[in-house]
């Protein structure tokens, strides 16, 4: 990791740690505010093979993340309204700048259900040339719904995402670009909430939009593809400190061509689709 990384990381950690207490001071009371700081570290158990030309497995390793999630209660919906803010950053050996993600929105939450509608965006930052196909940013609509009562709490997330173009290479004075049509994500899941133990099972269904790769005299078209990402997680809650372990796997429908899949899929950080199977450790500190 070079000097730029270290400086960026320090600034980021300072900002995130500062935001926790600052956010708390704006809340009128503990009941009106809910938030936590989190950090993750992932280990790829298995990578896709073969990989795109010049790409190594380590290039596609899920980044380590740090972030926070905050929910403020507002006066709307008879006092059940809330404002939601999620922010995270990801750092890996091969990202020249950290990746950033932000979700902001509003909704309501009572003792039975919660619904948040917001706008979400993420930037994969500036990456090494070998993984330039991941160097994009995306933004879109995010809808989260969850049941908040009982031990087993179903939930689902829905996202509609627009993805920016990226330059893959430049030769003979012509640029080769990659462009994506919108992607849809649906994540139904269920949470287990016990006094000490936590559990979660999710099935991420990603409909990756058609992708075009082209330069002035070349074109390659990849049609829409669905990808399944099941994840199971177990956690323990120790008075505001949570420790989680998550196991996830990625199954593209067209599994015979992982190279084409990796070019079509820009999801690197929060919704990592670049590692075939991974294990993630997560630590949460509730403010």
């Amino acid at each position, binding site marked *: 990791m070079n000097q730029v990384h270290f400086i960026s990381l320090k600034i980021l950690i300072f900002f995130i740690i500062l935001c926790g207490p600052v956010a708390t001071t704006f809340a009128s009371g503990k009941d009106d505010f809910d938030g936590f700081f989190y950090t993750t570290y992932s280990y790829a158990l298995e990578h896709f093979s*073969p990989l*795109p*030309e010049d790409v190594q497995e380590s290039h596609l390793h899920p980044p380590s993340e740090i972030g926070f999630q905050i929910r403020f209660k507002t006066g709307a919906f008879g006092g059940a309204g809330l404002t939601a803010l999620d922010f995270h950053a990801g750092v890996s050996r091969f990202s020249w700048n950290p990746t950033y993600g932000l979700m902001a929105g509003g909704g309501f939450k009572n003792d039975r259900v919660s619904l948040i509608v917001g706008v979400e965006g993420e930037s994969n930052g500036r990456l090494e040339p070998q993984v330039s196909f991941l160097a994009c940013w995306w933004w879109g609509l995010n809808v989260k719904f969850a049941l908040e009562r009982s031990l087993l709490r179903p939930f689902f997330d829905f996202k509609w995402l627009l993805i920016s*173009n990226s330059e893959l*290479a430049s*030769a*003979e004075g*012509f640029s*080769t*670009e*990659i*462009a994506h*049509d919108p992607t849809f994500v649906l994540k139904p899941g269920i949470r287990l909430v016990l006094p000490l133990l936590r559990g979660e099972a999710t099935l991420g269904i990603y409909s990756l939009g*058609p992708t*075009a*790769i*082209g*330069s*002035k*005299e*070349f*074109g*390659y*078209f*990849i*049609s829409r593809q669905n990808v399944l990402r099941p994840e199971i997680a177990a956690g323990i809650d120790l008075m505001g400190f949570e420790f989680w372990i998550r196991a996830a796997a990625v199954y593209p429908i067209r599994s*015979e*061509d*992982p*190279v*084409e899949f990796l*070019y079509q899929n820009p999801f690197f950080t929060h919704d990592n689709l670049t590692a075939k199977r991974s294990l993630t450790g997560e630590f949460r500190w509730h403010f």
Partner: protein
Amino acid sequence: MAFLRTLILMALITGCGPQTISQTQLVETDTYISSSDSSAHADLNYLKISKSASSEERILMKLPTVSTDSDVVGEMLKESGVWVFFMPLIVISELLECHNQIVRAENISKSELVIDVLDTLEADLTGKLQLDLLTRPWWQRASWNRAHYFSATKGAWATPGGDVDVTWLHPTFTVSGSSLHFDITNYIKELINLDGKGIHYGFLIQSSIATLASTRLKSSQYENTSTRPRLITNFTGTCYGAPATFRSTFILGSDPTRVSQPPEKIQEKIQEKI
């Protein structure tokens, strides 16, 4: 020169009789592939061709299709496929400026692909090279084994060294001074006559003999633009009364047989874009 051409044009329109116009179109994309070297060669100012018992080098070259400012990826997503125009025909129609912008194959009297030699160890290249027609799209960083790198299953050449149409008749090849001339008049006429259903993936130039000493040709990156590979086409400026299509659409992509729209829809779309 532009003023002179305008005068010729006016003479045509006022019915002074047929005139011959020569149009030079520079090749913009070329590279060479080597059986012993997989690195990219598109940015070099030369193209290598050679053949021996242990290694071989071949040239890949493509006639220009879309204009420089085309949004290729945007068009591909819109059309769920890949469509390009054959630029020389646009030039033809602009030059002739016939009332209905009519161009037929009969307008073309000669069309040659001309490439200049940079240096060679051969005493004479006559009869030692052949031009083949490629049957697969290729990226600028193509190699001996791969046409492109964006797919694990569809990026490799079916035959290492390039996939060519074995039924295509090799055009006449002549050497004039330090220039190599491939007469592709019939091919250009055929593209025009295919009227929107033609495909152009490019050409492959290789040795037609068992052993060819190393030869370097000037590439599309060569410093002197007038000596870069070029298509020189001679047209007769005569207008025809019956309407005809003057642009052809060439499909690029992983599946050369896939057509997302019927030919009549293609023609409508072409006319809209004009």
